[in-house]
C-alpha cells in the first residue's frame, strides 16, 4: 500500500500529474499505512483533519469557493450555448452510476445506490465535487474515488484525443470559430447571482457547492473586495488544499483501499471519462445540425470539466488539424460549464441517494 503512495508521489513529481493534490494525498496515504502508530484513525492527526474538514464538508466547499474566485466566466458569457456541452458531458456521471449498479446486478461487486452515485461523480471530472459527494455518500470509498478523479484528470491528454479523433471528421476538427465578444464587468457580476437564483429554484440541494462557488466568483468580479479575493485564491485555497489532501490520504489505508471495489471504481471512473468526453462531442455535432453558427465539436470534449486541462487538449487537437485554429478560449466555456453541470448533478445525487 505504501508503494501506491510512492507511485502517486512519483506520478505527481515526475510526471506532473495534478501535483497540488496528489503530493498531499500520496504522502498522506503513506503516513496512513505505517504500522504501529495511529495517524489516520482515532486521535491521529490525519483522522482529525478528515473529521474536521471532510466529514463536515468544509474543505471541499472552501476549495470550491477558491475555484470560483479563480474562474473567469467571460468565455461562457460570450457564448452561453456552450453550456449545452457542459450538460451533455455529465452523461458520463449517470452512465457510470448505471454501470456500477449493473456490476452489482451481475454479482461481481456489490454497490449500494449511494455508493454507485459516489462512483459516478468521478465522471464529473472535478476534484472537490467528487470529494464532497463521496464524503457525503460513501466515505469508505473516498480514497479510491479521489485517486481516480485526480488521476484521470491528469490523464486527460491521453484519454481524450483518441475519442476525439474517432468521433469527429477532419473537416469538423478544422472548423474555426469566430472571436468571442468582450463581456462587460456588470454581466460578470450579475452572472453568479443569476446562477445562484436558478439553483435555489431548481436544485436547492446543489446550493452548498454552487453557492460557495458563486460567492468566490462574486468576490472576484465585484472588484470591491480584492483583498478577500486574493487571499481566497492564494493562502486560503493553498492551506485548505494541503489539509484536504492529507485528509483524503487518510482514506488510503490498505484495509479500505486494497479491496476489489477499488478496481471496480478505477475501471468505472475511466469509463465515465470516456463516455463524458464522447457525449460532449456528440452534443456539439448535434448542435451543428440544428444551428447555422458552427462550433468545432472538439470543444465538446472540454465539457467534462478537468479545468483547464481538457480545454488545452481541445486546443491541441484542433491545432493538429488546422495550425490557425486556436480553440483554447472557446473551450473554456464548456469547460467551466462542466463544473456547473457536475455540481448540479452532485446536488441531485446527494438529495436522491443521501436519503435512500
Amino acid at each position, binding site marked *: 500500500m505504501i508503494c501506491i503512495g510512492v507511485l502517486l508521489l512519483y506520478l505527481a513529481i515526475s510526471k506532473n500529474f495534478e501535483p497540488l493534490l496528489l503530493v498531499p494525498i500520496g504522502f498522506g496515504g503513506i503516513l496512513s499505512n505505517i504500522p504501529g502508530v495511529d495517524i489516520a484513525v482515532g486521535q491521529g492527526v490525519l483522522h482529525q483533519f478528515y473529521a474536521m474538514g471532510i466529514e463536515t464538508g468544509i474543505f471541499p466547499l472552501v476549495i470550491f469557493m477558491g475555484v470560483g474566485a479563480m474562474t473567469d466566466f467571460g468565455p461562457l458569457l460570450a457564448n452561453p450555448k456552450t453550456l449545452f456541452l457542459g*450538460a451533455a458531458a455529465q452523461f458520463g456521471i*449517470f452512465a457510470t452510476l*448505471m454501470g456500477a449498479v449493473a456490476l452489482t446486478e451481475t454479482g461481481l461487486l456489490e454497490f449500494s*445506490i449511494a455508493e454507485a*452515485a459516489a462512483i459516478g461523480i468521478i465522471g464529473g471530472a472535478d476534484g472537490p465535487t467528487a470529494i464532497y459527494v463521496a464524503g457525503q455518500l460513501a466515505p469508505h470509498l473516498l480514497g479510491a474515488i479521489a485517486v481516480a478523479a485526480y488521476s484521470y484528470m491528469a490523464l486527460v491528454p491521453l484519454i481524450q484525443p483518441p475519442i476525439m479523433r474517432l468521433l469527429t471528421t477532419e473537416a469538423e476538427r478544422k472548423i474555426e470559430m469566430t472571436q468571442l465578444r468582450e463581456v*462587460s464587468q456588470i454581466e460578470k*457580476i450579475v452572472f453568479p447571482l443569476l446562477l445562484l437564483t436558478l439553483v435555489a429554484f431548481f436544485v436547492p440541494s446543489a446550493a452548498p457547492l454552487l453557492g460557495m462557488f458563486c460567492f468566490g466568483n462574486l468576490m472576484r468580479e465585484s472588484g470591491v473586495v480584492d483583498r478577500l479575493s486574493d487571499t481566497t485564491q492564494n493562502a486560503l485555497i493553498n492551506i485548505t488544499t494541503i489539509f484536504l489532501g492529507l485528509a483524503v490520504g487518510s482514506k488510503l489505508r490498505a484495509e479500505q483501499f486494497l479491496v476489489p471495489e477499488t478496481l471496480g471504481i478505477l475501471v468505472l471512473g475511466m469509463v465515465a471519462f470516456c463516455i463524458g468526453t464522447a457525449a460532449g462531442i456528440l452534443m456539439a455535432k448535434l448542435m451543428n445540425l440544428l444551428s447555422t453558427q458552427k462550433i468545432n465539436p472538439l470543444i465538446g470534449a472540454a465539457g467534462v470539466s478537468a479545468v483547464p486541462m481538457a480545454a488545452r487538449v481541445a486546443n491541441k487537437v484542433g491545432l493538429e488539424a488546422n495550425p490557425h485554429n486556436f480553440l483554447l478560449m472557446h473551450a473554456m466555456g464548456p469547460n467551466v460549464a462542466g463544473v456547473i453541470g457536475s455540481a448540479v448533478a452532485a446536488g441531485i445525487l446527494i438529495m436522491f441517494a443521501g436519503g435512500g
Partner: protein
Amino acid sequence: MSDVLTQAIDLVVYGMGTVVIFLTVLVGATMLMSYCLQTFFTAERPEVTLRPSAAPSEGLTDPKILAALSAAVKKYREDHN
C-alpha cells in the same frame, strides 16, 4: 428487476433530465441577462456607476486640497484598512 436497478434508472432519468433542463434554462437566462444589461448599461458606461471612488460624497473641487487629502487618506487606508 431489482429494487436498486429501478432506483438507479429513476435517478439517471431524473438526474440527467434536471442537468439538461437546468443548463438550458441557464442558457436562456444568461442570454436574457446579457441582452438586458447590454441594452441598459452600454450608453451610460457601467464602470462609472459600478465603481465609485471610495468616498463618492467628498465633492471637493480644489485639486490641491484634493491631492493633499488623497495622500493622507491613502496613508491611512494603508494603515487601517
